[in-house]
């Protein structure tokens, strides 16, 4: 067993977990400021989380084990994704490479768990959210896979770490049309997958527009804490991935302490920038009508597909 | 052993005599069965002889039993046994009367004569005799419809067979021209007569056309559905199961003569066209069929068409498959007609939509009907599966790809139509309106044993390489020129 790699992965998970609520805090704060509000401060998500963990957990009569185990599965899948993705370093775990297909599947486990939690209590809104959530997930998947397929062609590998490493070695790739198209497509997919505007409004509780919130309506206490943290972690990890694809510099390629420190700082900087940008962007966006979302996703799919085509014809 | 050549004929005569004299009815009823058994036994004995390369022939040379004739005799016996035994109670009111039994025996005798004759002329006479014997059998019910069927049957049949006679006459003329006038198979088949090809061409074409009428090949099949649907069930079984086959036997014989003189193209063309037309007609008329006896009749047209394709293809596999098909089809179809006669007796109708839910209401009839239909549709282990596959592969491998392709499409349509009709007839719940509590009638309305035997035989014969396979091989050798 390669202990260094394991330690690096654990470190990466730790950092990501600590940072994830802050990323949400930054987006919310940015948004508040731009909208002329004072905002609750970037630490507010952490405070919410700790409060939730201390509260009593209620659950509906007659639910199955999904309602109690589901949140843990969601959290674990997000943690696993954080461990696999090249966020701080390109060093991968032995036997568990950060193969794109594996990462997507692990993410989907979380998606499925949330969807099942939504159905389990038997309330009308949970089913609604679950149904919409799964529809979006189903339509996002082609975009994600095709986009990364496009990115993997120059690298000759579907390992995300190799893709990022290739970009470090040959930065020209980043600005190639293939890369631009693919990264934009991937970014849209990430927004959809993590329930951000314009696909889903994370701060709404207006019944008819809820997606993610509808599924977790019946959860409380630590269940809700895991579900929230899990989704934040997922957002941070994916933002980190997109950031590293666009700006790979700073990423540690070996396991020295210095490199890791640089990598961590780089990650924090990138995430801060991206989170702020995301928050700023959301000020100007309205949520799409639910049945416009497939058009958006179709658009991003076309971008991804063009990227693949371009990768054959242009470079 | 040569005595066995005469056994079928004598048995038929005796049977006819017993049948027509007013012996005790109990006795009379078994004349058909007795004749059938006599034919079957002689067929087996002659086959055994033929397998031992010992071809029996009568003193005058008019009768002769090579492997092919013996095999056909077995087929006649086996199918006749199924039909007569199975039909023992199904022949209408009061066991059909004197004439009925006498005519059945005469019919069987005529068919036996047709396959045993070594002389084309005698064979022709015998085949014409079958028309005469069955005319009143078809019209047996004495209804207007039966009369109509009988009239059509006699006119179309006789005209067709007359054309065959014209062909035979021309063939005789051809042999006369070559200096040794003969109508003997043996002499004709050896192919060492210098015959005038143009005359043989005309002769063979006309003869095949004529016999194809009796064999039920389109476009001369028109009598068939009417006659089959109106005749008493055992008679339909006999006609469909063996009469068609006997006529087809004549076609095969003529084909072998013509091929020796002319090469295979003419006969192949005619048979392929006839086969395809038959399949097409059967397919087209089965789609919207409403009467289950007519359905069986058109299925016979289809099977004859298939055999015609097999004969057109020729070759060892093709011809063996055709011969095997004759037996399989005969047994299956006669069982089906026997059962359909019982259904008609029990339900009082031959309209499919009036029966419905047969399997639920009358399992004693529904089960054998379905098993026989499965056999007829060509599912294994029944022998029709093997013969169909053999015929189609032979047709394709011998250069009739397009023909086979069309045939496959038509076969699919036929299959679909037959399956649909059978499903309508047999499956589903009986109509609620008839009675709230469906009456389940488990009786089989007649002896079960002949059906069981016939269908079991169909199921196993394809796996019997010895002696059946060897017999078929020798029979095919007869057709291929050696005897």
């Amino acid at each position: 067993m390669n202990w260094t790699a394991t330690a690096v992965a654990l470190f990466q998970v730790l950092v990501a977990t600590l940072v994830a609520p802050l990323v949400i805090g930054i987006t919310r704060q940015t948004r508040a400021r731009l909208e002329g509000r004072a905002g609750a401060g970037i630490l507010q998500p952490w405070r919410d989380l700790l409060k939730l963990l201390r509260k009593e957990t209620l659950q509906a009569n007659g639910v199955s084990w999904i309602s109690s185990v589901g949140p843990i599965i969601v959290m674990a899948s997000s943690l696993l994704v954080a461990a696999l993705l090249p966020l701080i370093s390109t060093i991968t775990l032995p036997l568990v490479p950060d193969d794109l297909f594996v990462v997507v599947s692990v993410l989907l486990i979380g998606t499925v768990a949330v969807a099942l939690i939504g159905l389990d209590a038997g309330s009308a809104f949970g089913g609604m959210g679950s149904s919409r959530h799964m529809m979006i997930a189903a339509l996002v998947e082609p975009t994600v896979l095709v986009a990364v397929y496009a990115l993997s062609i120059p690298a000759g590998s579907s390992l995300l770490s190799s893709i990022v490493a290739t970009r470090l070695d040959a930065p020209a790739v980043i600005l190639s049309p293939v890369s631009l198209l693919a990264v934009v497509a991937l970014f849209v997919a990430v927004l959809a997958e993590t329930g951000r505007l314009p696909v889903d409004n994370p701060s709404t509780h207006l019944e008819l527009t809820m997606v993610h919130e509808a599924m977790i309506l019946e959860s409380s206490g630590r269940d809700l804490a895991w579900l929230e943290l899990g989704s934040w972690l997922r957002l941070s990890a994916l933002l980190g991935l997109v950031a590293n694809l666009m700006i790979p510099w700073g990423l540690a390629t070996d396991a020295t302490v210095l490199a890791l420190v640089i990598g961590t700082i780089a990650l924090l900087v990138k995430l801060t920038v991206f989170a702020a940008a995301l928050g700023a962007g959301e000020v100007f966006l309205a949520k799409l009508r639910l049945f416009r979302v497939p058009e958006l996703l179709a658009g991003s799919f076309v971008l991804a597909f063009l990227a693949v085509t371009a990768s054959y014809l242009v470079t | 052993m040569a005595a066995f050549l005469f056994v079928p004929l004598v048995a038929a005569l005796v049977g006819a005599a017993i049948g027509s004299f007013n012996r005790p009815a109990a006795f009379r009823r078994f004349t058909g069965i007795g004749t059938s058994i006599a034919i079957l036994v002689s067929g087996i004995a002659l086959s055994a002889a033929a397998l031992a390369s010992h071809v029996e022939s009568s003193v005058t040379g008019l009768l002769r039993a090579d492997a092919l004739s013996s095999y056909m005799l077995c087929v006649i016996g086996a199918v006749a046994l199924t039909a007569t035994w199975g039909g023992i109670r199904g022949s209408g009111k009061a066991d059909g009367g004197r004439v009925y039994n006498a005519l059945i025996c005469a019919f069987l005798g005529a068919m036996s004569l047709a396959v045993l004759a070594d002389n084309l002329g005698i064979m022709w006479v015998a085949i014409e005799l079958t028309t005469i014997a069955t005319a009143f059998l078809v019209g047996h019910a004495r209804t207007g419809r039966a009369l109509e069927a009988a009239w059509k049957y006699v006119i179309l049949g006789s005209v067709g067979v007359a054309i065959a006679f014209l062909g035979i006459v021309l063939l005789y003329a051809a042999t006369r021209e070559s200096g040794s006038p003969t109508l003997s198979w043996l002499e004709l088949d050896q192919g060492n007569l210098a015959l005038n090809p143009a005359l043989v061409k005309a002769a063979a074409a006309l003869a095949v056309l004529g016999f194809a009428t009796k064999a039920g090949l389109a476009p001369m099949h028109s009598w068939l559905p009417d006659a089959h649907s109106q005749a008493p069930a055992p008679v339909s079984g006999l006609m469909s199961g063996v009469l068609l086959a006997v006529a087809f036997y004549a076609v095969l014989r003529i084909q072998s003569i013509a091929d020796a003189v002319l090469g295979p193209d003419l006969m192949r063309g005619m048979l392929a066209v006839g086969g395809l037309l038959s399949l097409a007609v059967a397919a087209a008329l089965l789609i919207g069929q409403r009467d289950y006896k007519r359905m069986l009749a058109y299925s016979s047209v289809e099977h004859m068409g298939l055999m015609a394709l097999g004969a057109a293809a020729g070759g060892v596999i093709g011809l063996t498959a055709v011969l095997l098909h004759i037996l399989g089809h005969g047994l299956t179809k006669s069982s089906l007609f026997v059962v359909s006669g019982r259904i008609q007796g029990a339900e009082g109708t031959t309209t499919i939509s009036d029966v419905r839910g047969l399997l639920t209401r009358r399992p004693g009839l529904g089960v054998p009907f379905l098993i026989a239909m499965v056999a007829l549709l060509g599912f294994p282990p029944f022998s029709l599966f093997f013969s169909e596959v053999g015929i189609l592969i032979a047709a394709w491998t011998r250069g009739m790809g397009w023909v086979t392709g069309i045939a496959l499409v038509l076969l699919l349509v036929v299959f679909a139509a037959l399956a649909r009709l059978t499903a309508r007839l047999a499956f589903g719940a009986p109509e609620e309106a008839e009675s709230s509590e469906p009456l389940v009638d488990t009786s089989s309305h007649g002896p079960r044993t002949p059906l069981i035997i016939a269908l079991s035989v169909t199921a196993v014969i394809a796996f019997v390489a010895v002696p059946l396979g060897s017999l078929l091989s020798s029979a095919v050798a007869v057709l291929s020129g050696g005897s």
Partner: protein
Amino acid sequence: MSESLYAQLISLTAGTLLLTAALIVWRRSLRASVRLLAIQGIALAGLVAVLGWHERTIELVLVSLLVLGLKAIVLPLVLSRNVLTHDDDREVPRLNPTASLIFAALLTMLAYIVCRPWMGDTDDPTSRAVPIGIALVLIGFLLLITRRRAASQLIGFLVLDNGIATVAFLTATGVPLIVELGASLDVLLVVLILQVLTGRMQVKFGGTDLDDLTELKD
């Protein structure tokens, strides 16, 4: 007998055959048709007799007597009994006589055309007459197709049969005797059966119009 007389006799008998067939096509009266059929039978018997005389075979002469008995006497008698028992002896053909005659003429020409390759271009009078036999077959068939009455169909069938017999005698001076006997017996039986069926038809349908026989169909 001289060859020319022989040829003339053959032509005469064969010509009579064709002529009677044409007349049968033309006439609507059943009785007349039966009479014509009898004449045709005589002509056929004559043809056989001429052949027998020419070939000096006693067998053929005997056969000619058989033909005379069957085709000129027995069958017409059987038929006329049937026809005479009914008042109505008018045939209403499906095709008017003129058209039928034209068809008959066309069929005769066809017969000549199709026979050429088999017979070759011999001057043999018998070979030259063969097409008449074929024409008779075709005209018989035409009668079967165009006539409505049961008796007319019988007549058509017999014309067809005469045609085959003509071909048989002209091409091969007949088939072997046993076959000839069998064939004659068969024809007789068929005619008898059809007679019986006609009788039943009369009882069932009150007429012998074949257009009534369309109950059995799909």
